[in-house]
């Protein structure tokens, strides 16, 4: 293909000055909710109803935003490792989103303080008669060498955060460095880093999924659980990337992003809709079939009373509807239709996360709490604030990437 007639676009810098009012609103909403939530949550005595509600609401909001961000990070490493040319114009947005991961460390801190209310193995291991299920698993949470006890649970948390943070910042920094010198060696280097990056990503995501999001029920085990979290994360991450790119295009930037790029992103969204359904079903069917009490407990908990309605709706809303909707080419290429389904999938991801976390707390059907909303409002607007501030830090697309023209003249 010949590209001579295509003009190389000039780097575009996002002007966050025009957004002062929005930035202020985001900061205000985020900071207020954060203060209210943390003050009430920390003032409540440990083990009380209020305290547990706060703890699980916070875990729910944390899981929601954390999975979206690692989903965005996943798309960076997939992009590099497959040597893709299609998405150069949108890659900087993946990098901007993924580089919010270090901030998630701050949002993880409240979880550390309420750890005894969430991860019940911490209290269970202190009881004089240890549950035999926990005794067998305790070496996963803590390494014991004689009298030396290494809290492996927290070591893993630190290692995983370190990996995600450094890798996400590395990809963004290297990509920005290439903006100034245009040296193809950075592309090659990032590709090289992305291969071990994928392995570590899989390991970290699986461990985090076990540690943080399923160990409130330490008896449960499922080899699919890490993959399930990843499947939801990748889909929600792609939906976020699509919305951010569309938002920037509506604001007058990234004019060269066209329906061909939407088409590919729509196809990836479609893929991960199917993948989510596939993994969710594979996990459910094997547990349902084998009928082992420790395993079925997970799904029993999520199918009693009103939880059953939500679980059924999740299957329809997160899989069947987007599947039929995205099957058509038109919905993937049309910006409005694709934006609608991206919003829908992000909404369904809220439900997915809610059904993952909340049944630990409300065993007799779901009970909405103001803390659920406050926790989402504490993390979401603050992340959006940091993101918008970060957008202006570099060009909105990798302006010197050797494959930029290939990405501009994309066709499916």
């Amino acid at each position, binding site marked *: *293909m*010949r590209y001579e007639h295509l003009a190389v676009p000039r780097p575009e810098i996002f002007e966050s000055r025009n957004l002062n009012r929005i930035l202020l609103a985001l900061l205000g909403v985020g900071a207020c909710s954060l203060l209210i939530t943390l003050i009430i949550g920390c003032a409540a005595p440990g083990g009380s109803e209020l305290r547990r509600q706060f703890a699980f609401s916070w875990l729910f909001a944390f899981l929601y935003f954390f999975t979206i961000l690692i989903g965005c990070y996943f798309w960076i490493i997939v992009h590099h490792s497959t040597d893709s040319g299609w998405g150069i114009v949108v890659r900087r947005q993946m990098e901007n989103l993924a580089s919010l991961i270090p901030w998630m460390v701050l949002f993880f801190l409240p979880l550390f303080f309420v750890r005894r209310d969430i991860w019940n193995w911490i209290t269970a291991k202190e009881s004089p008669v240890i549950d035999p299920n926990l005794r067998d698993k305790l070496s996963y949470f803590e390494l014991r060498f004689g009298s030396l006890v290494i809290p492996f649970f927290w070591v893993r948390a630190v290692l995983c955060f370190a990996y995600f943070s450094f890798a996400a910042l590395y990809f963004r920094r290297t990509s920005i460095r290439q903006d100034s010198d245009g040296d193809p060696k950075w592309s090659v280097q990032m590709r090289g880093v992305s291969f071990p990056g994928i392995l570590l990503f899989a390991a970290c995501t699986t461990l985090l999924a076990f540690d943080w999001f399923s160990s409130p029920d330490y008896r449960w085990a499922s080899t699919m659980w890490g993959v399930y979290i990843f499947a939801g994360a990748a889909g929600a991450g792609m939906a976020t990337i699509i919305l951010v790119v569309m938002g920037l295009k509506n604001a007058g930037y990234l004019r060269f992003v066209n329906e061909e790029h939407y088409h590919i992103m729509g196809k990836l969204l479609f893929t991960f809709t199917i993948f989510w359904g596939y993994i969710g*079903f594979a996990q*459910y*069917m094997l547990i*349902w*079939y084998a*009928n082992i009490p420790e395993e079925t407990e997970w799904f029993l908990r999520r199918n009693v009373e009103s939880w059953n309605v939500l679980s059924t709706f999740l299957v329809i809303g997160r899989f069947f509807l987007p599947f039929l909707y995205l*099957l058509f*080419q038109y919905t993937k290429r049309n910006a409005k239709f694709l934006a609608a389904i991206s919003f829908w999938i992000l909404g369904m991801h809220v439900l997915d996360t809610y059904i993952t976390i909340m049944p630990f707390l409300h065993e007799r059907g779901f009970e909405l709490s103001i803390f659920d909303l406050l926790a989402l409002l504490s993390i979401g607007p603050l992340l959006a604030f940091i993101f918008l501030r970060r957008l202006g830090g570099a060009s909105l697309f990798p302006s010197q990437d050797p494959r930029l023209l290939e990405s501009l*003249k994309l*066709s*499916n």
Partner: protein
Amino acid sequence: MSAASLSKPAFAVIAEFPSAGALYEAAEKVRDAGFRFWDVHSPFEIHGMNKAMGLGKSTLGYIIFCGGFLGFTTAALLEFIPSSYLFPLIVHGKPVNFYTNPPFFPIMFELTILFSAFTAFFGVFIMNRLPRMHHPLFNYEPFKRVTNDAFFLVIESVDPKFSEIGTREFLEGIGGKEVTLIYAND
């Protein structure tokens, strides 16, 4: 050229192009000139060629959707009718009702895929009028290179705008090399 071959009807005019890019741009010009019965041949897929040729969207996708839906329905009926109504068996102590469906899903999934794949495969066959033992293009010896390193553009004589002299000149004008008239089988 022998007298015998001159008496045969013309099938098409063929032109060779040096690269995929050249073929792509030639296709855009042939499309803009308003030809309808023509084709390009290359050793590999050229991205965007369907647009350069002005091809519309294939109807194959809709046919495959119908095939897949048929597969899904077949599997669902084959499983639910015997297992839930005709010969309900209690397995693993699980109840016999509509919600005892997880073991049915893999079969629905696989029949959907199987029927879609068959529809796609045979749909492509029928829509391309395959199988076909011979094609007039094979009368042109250099066409063999199309699976290796050559890029060809063919305008067929059934096209209303086709004329032996005019089309030759047109193809030469847009950069075609070795422009040759191919004869139909007699």
